């Protein structure tokens, strides 16, 4: 479903973010990508979203190389990928409800569907009562739950979560991971980039380990092992 083919990203000769990384992800998998800060986790996810171009190599989503997708096709691909970021990236001038609804609007959904699906997504993350709050009126954990609802509302095939728990306390971290598991159980592929040991070890799923831009381990039921 997702295939990284010898992907390298070189910002400058002394700053190599990714080096010859190849792996593939099957549908409904839950993959954790671990490594120190600067190991290339975020860059890897950016490559899949086509937010940044690789220096060499190809990134396929199904049979399409996302970096060769046309102007019209790229939005279609991105609609099938939900993204969650460490800094939430909610739109500050929109309420929680609108932050979720605009993703559906961007995908040209009907008003009727938006009115049905947004409350469902809010229900899933347990924030129905905060629907009309603006991001600055929400706590960190609540913001991230809105972001998850936003990523999930279009029923994407895959969800990318880039350090979703990086700014959260252990309690909120557990809740977010539970949500991701729930979403994965509903049939959505999840790719989680993190450097949180407990999260990874508690999952007991596939773990890809990056170090200085290189893929050094890929374990079916992995643990967080970094020297």
């Amino acid at each position, binding site marked *: 479903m997702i295939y990284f083919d010898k992907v390298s990203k070189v910002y400058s000769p002394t700053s190599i973010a990714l080096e010859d990384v190849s792996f593939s992800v099957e549908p409904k998998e839950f993959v954790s990508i671990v490594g120190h800060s600067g190991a290339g986790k975020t860059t890897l996810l950016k490559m899949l*979203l086509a*937010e940044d171009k690789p220096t060499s190599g190809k990134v396929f989503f199904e049979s399409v190389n996302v970096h060769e997708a046309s*102007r*019209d096709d790229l*939005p*279609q*691909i*991105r*609609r*099938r*990928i*939900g*993204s969650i970021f460490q800094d939430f*990236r909610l*739109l*500050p*001038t929109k309420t929680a409800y609108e932050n979720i609804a*605009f*993703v559906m*609007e*961007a*995908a*040209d959904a*009907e*008003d009727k569907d938006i009115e049905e699906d947004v409350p469902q997504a809010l229900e899933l993350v347990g924030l129905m009562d905060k629907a009309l709050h603006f991001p600055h009126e929400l706590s960190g954990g609540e913001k991230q739950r809105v972001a998850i609802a*936003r990523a999930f509302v*279009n029923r994407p095939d895959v969800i990318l979560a880039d350090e979703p728990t990086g700014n959260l306390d252990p309690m909120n971290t557990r809740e977010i991971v539970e949500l991701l598991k729930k979403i994965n159980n509903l049939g959505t592929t999840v790719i989680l980039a993190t450097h949180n040991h407990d999260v990874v070890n508690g999952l007991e799923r596939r773990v890809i380990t990056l170090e200085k831009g290189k893929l050094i381990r890929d374990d079916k039921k992995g643990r967080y092992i970094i020297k």
Partner: protein
Amino acid sequence: MKVNARRAFKEGIVNFWRNGWVSLAAILVMVLALFMIGSLIFSNVLLTSALTRIEEQVDISVYFKKEATEEEILNAESALSQLPQVKSVSYVSEAEALESFRARHSANALITQSLDELGENPLQASLNIKAQSPDQYEVIAKFLDASAYSALIDKINYFQNRVVIERLSGFLGASRAAGLGITFVFSLIAMLVVFNTIRLAIYTSRDEIAVKRLVGATRAHVRMPFMVGGVMYGVISAIITMIIFYPLTLGLGQATARFFGGPDLFSYYLSNFFEIFFILLLVGVILGVISSSIATRRYLRV
């Protein structure tokens, strides 16, 4: 598409309201720019009317020798009025010239007495000629010099006033050009300031644009609400500018009319209300939309 337009419109208005301070700043700057353009329209009206008045006061007089008969002079008048450069010709007979001379100097006993003692009319008959434009007096003067009437002509005061007339016509031409140039330069500066302000307003939304692109919004989808915002800046600014001009022209109208001898600005404002409003609206909306379009383009590359 219809759904998208409606959503873009709604989002544009909501953003406009929620980014209150930024919208206010953009509108204030655009009001300044439109005010400048409006002021230039008004001052152009004043300047044009002042220039027309000055031009109307320029004429040349052709004085005929005593031996020229009235018939010959009237022939010359009709020949002159055939010329395309001539706007009007008026004949002043010897008797009329004397009458107006006496009337002008009725308070001066010495002059009246001398005239009475002289016994005959010392003044000459003349033709007063107005040209279509000041630079054509030379052509008219030359025409007279070369014509059959030149033997009857005593003097043409163009040759005495020539330098003044030439300078005046040069000055009038130059002030028109300068007026146009100033209009152009000021409008350009105003537009650049507006463009930068709107760019700044959109700069604050760059993260929003990036997020929208990353969740799969098309470029058009991201851009449309900003276009709506640009249109709103233009419409609201044009309305505010028109409102500002109401008390301003009312207060200044009569004073400027007295000074420039031109039309009352307030009555000009009222009678050309829709034309002025339309110009400001057009400039404002085009400026807003183009600025928004260029400013969003930068952040759409994601």
